[in-house]
């Protein structure tokens, strides 16, 4: 049944834009090499993290890089060196993009909703998987994501990319695409439409991304995709909460009889709490 599903973007007549096939959605590492890289990297990362010293941290970072290289099949060093150890044909073999679509209605005027979103620095306020967005100029921006999985975050570090606004119609729509060599190639469109009878603004968001290439990358992304999708939906719900009520609805930091949550001096809305909440939503 799922295979027969028409993409929501085509239903809404939006999101014809496809993410580039640069960076991680290309394979330039041979399969055998990838498996060894991933396995060796995991060992190194574990060993490094156990040692805990600065040397250990360096080992862990290197291990993390190797895991990423193995999982994605993409090695920036190979790219820089013009080296490609993958099968001859796989150079132009990119993964199909995965689409996430979510619409909701916000009880605020279109101008106001658009203005808040267009100020891209605002996005991490409600997109808890982002730690920072920096506007480089009017069209280009730099994005830094946070990884919800603690171990993955330790090994991979941050995931960053630059994006470019391709189309902008004030108070109506924004189309963007990540620029070449993004760690995760992505593209998207957000549309702002007046809801009937003055019920505020309909926000339609379509995000497309190419998972890191190859079977290994695909398998990993398949595992992550439902969590990622849920995360995007939670982000948009928080956007609505923030615009309508001025705050983000939460129970993080409230009392319970669970001993694990009773750490004295724990700040209710600390970064930690945000990570926890995100993790909770990611577990769905």
């Amino acid at each position, binding site marked *: 049944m799922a295979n027969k599903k028409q993409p929501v973007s085509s239903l809404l007549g939006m999101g014809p834009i496809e993410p580039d096939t640069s960076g991680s959605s290309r394979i330039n590492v041979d399969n055998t090499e990838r498996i060894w890289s991933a396995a060796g990297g995991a060992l190194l990362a574990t060993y490094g993290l156990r040692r805990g010293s600065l040397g250990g941290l360096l080992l862990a970072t290197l291990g993390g890089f190797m895991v990423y290289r193995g999982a994605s099949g993409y090695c920036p060093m190979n790219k820089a060196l013009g080296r490609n150890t993958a099968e001859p044909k796989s150079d132009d073999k990119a993964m199909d993009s995965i689409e996430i679509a979510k619409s909701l209605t916000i*009880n605020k005027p279109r101008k106001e909703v658009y203005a808040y979103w267009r100020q891209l620095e605002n996005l991490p306020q409600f997109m808890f998987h982002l730690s920072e967005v920096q506007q480089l100029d009017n069209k280009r921006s730099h994005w830094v994501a946070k990884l919800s999985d603690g171990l993955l975050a330790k090994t991979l570090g941050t995931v960053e990319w630059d994006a470019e606004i391709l189309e902008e119609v004030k108070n109506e729509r924004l189309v963007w695409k990540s620029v070449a060599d993004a760690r995760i190639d992505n593209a998207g469109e957000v549309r702002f439409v007046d809801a009937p009878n003055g019920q505020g603004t309909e926000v339609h968001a379509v995000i497309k991304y190419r998972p890191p290439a190859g079977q290994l990358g695909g398998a990993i992304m398949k595992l992550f995709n439902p969590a990622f999708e849920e995360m995007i939906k*939670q982000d948009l719900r928080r956007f*609505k909460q923030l615009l309508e009520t001025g705050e983000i609805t939460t129970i993080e930091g*409230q*009392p319970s*009889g*669970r001993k694990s949550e009773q750490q*004295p001096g724990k700040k209710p809305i600390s970064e930690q709490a945000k990570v926890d909440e995100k993790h909770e939503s990611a577990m769905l």
Partner: protein
Amino acid sequence: MKALCYNGVGDLRTERVPDPTIINPKDAILRVILSSVCGSDLHLLNGYVPTMREGDIIGHEFMGEVIEIGSEVKNLKKGDRVVVCSILGCGECQYCQSTQWSLCDNSNPHAWIPEKAYGYSPAGIFGYSHAFGGYAGSHADYIRVPYADRGCFVIPEGLPDEAAVFASDALPTGFMAADLADIQPGNVVAIWGCGGVGQMAIQSAFLLGASRVIAIDREPDRLRMAKEISGAEVLDFSKVDVQEALREMTGGRGPDRCIDCVGMEAVSEGLDYYYDKTKQFVRLESDRPIVLREAIMACRKGGTVSIIGVYGGLVDSIPMGAAMNKALTFRMGQQHGQRYIPRLLEHLQKGELNSSFMLTHKMSLDQGMAGYDLFNKKETMRVVFAPQ
């Protein structure tokens, strides 16, 4: 502080937990003065609501004193004696602004759970499982109240705590049941269930113009209160055939309005109880809609069935043919308390409604489990905890 925590089906424990703090600017912290048990807590306690976690503080019907307010709280001040609506509404979304508060878009931080089960998420509720937000409940010394300006109502001077506490849930729920039933002057109203909500629905039906109210239950004490205090004619379903009795008592027409104040854990004397109980046990059905079926059958042609008793999931064998061919109207929903509470506090103060009689047992938080045992066995109308 002390709080009554869920620890598994039929297992409540009074525990030491951290005090609540202001988390968001529109929060307030209350010292809980009175916190009542509610029939819907039994669904949690008896394991019919799947998203409870060990350590959750339960309780949602309460009143208390404001002791701290967030930076964005405008209408409250420290020392205010307030009653709090059991269901949270942000006040800003389309639903809240059209006074359908229990459909609030923003007050459930776990909206994704009901979205999977119901399509869209209703509002958050205090102490009522993670599907409804996972908010810490009121059976505690203190409670955090989000959107405090919207959910807290200052209790008029002279109205005692024991009457005001029920303006949190039982009274607005019962009143909404009568309001949804769209009672016209002279209507005969049948009400299933004579617990707290049922009693309030009986009184509200009279307030809205019913000429007669026929109340149905089998607990002698509850039937006595329905008759002597709330003013209904009563039927003991363990002793009479309800369908026949209602038909004969209404000159063969049937009641104009039927109100279900029971919901998913209904009991009956007949075979249908065992039918539903068995299907529930093997998870083919989550709710026992015995009262709903009865109400549909009993309702006169062209009448209205109002459903305020809580249903959670799936029901079987609803006589849809009867409903369709008799052209019935169905109205239902969780209470939109914020719409009704100011008006109900006035009715209470003027003596047009009587709620304090429902407080039959006052206990300390330490007696939490004992209180719920008593309530589960229906040996009390309402146990109310007085934390300090």
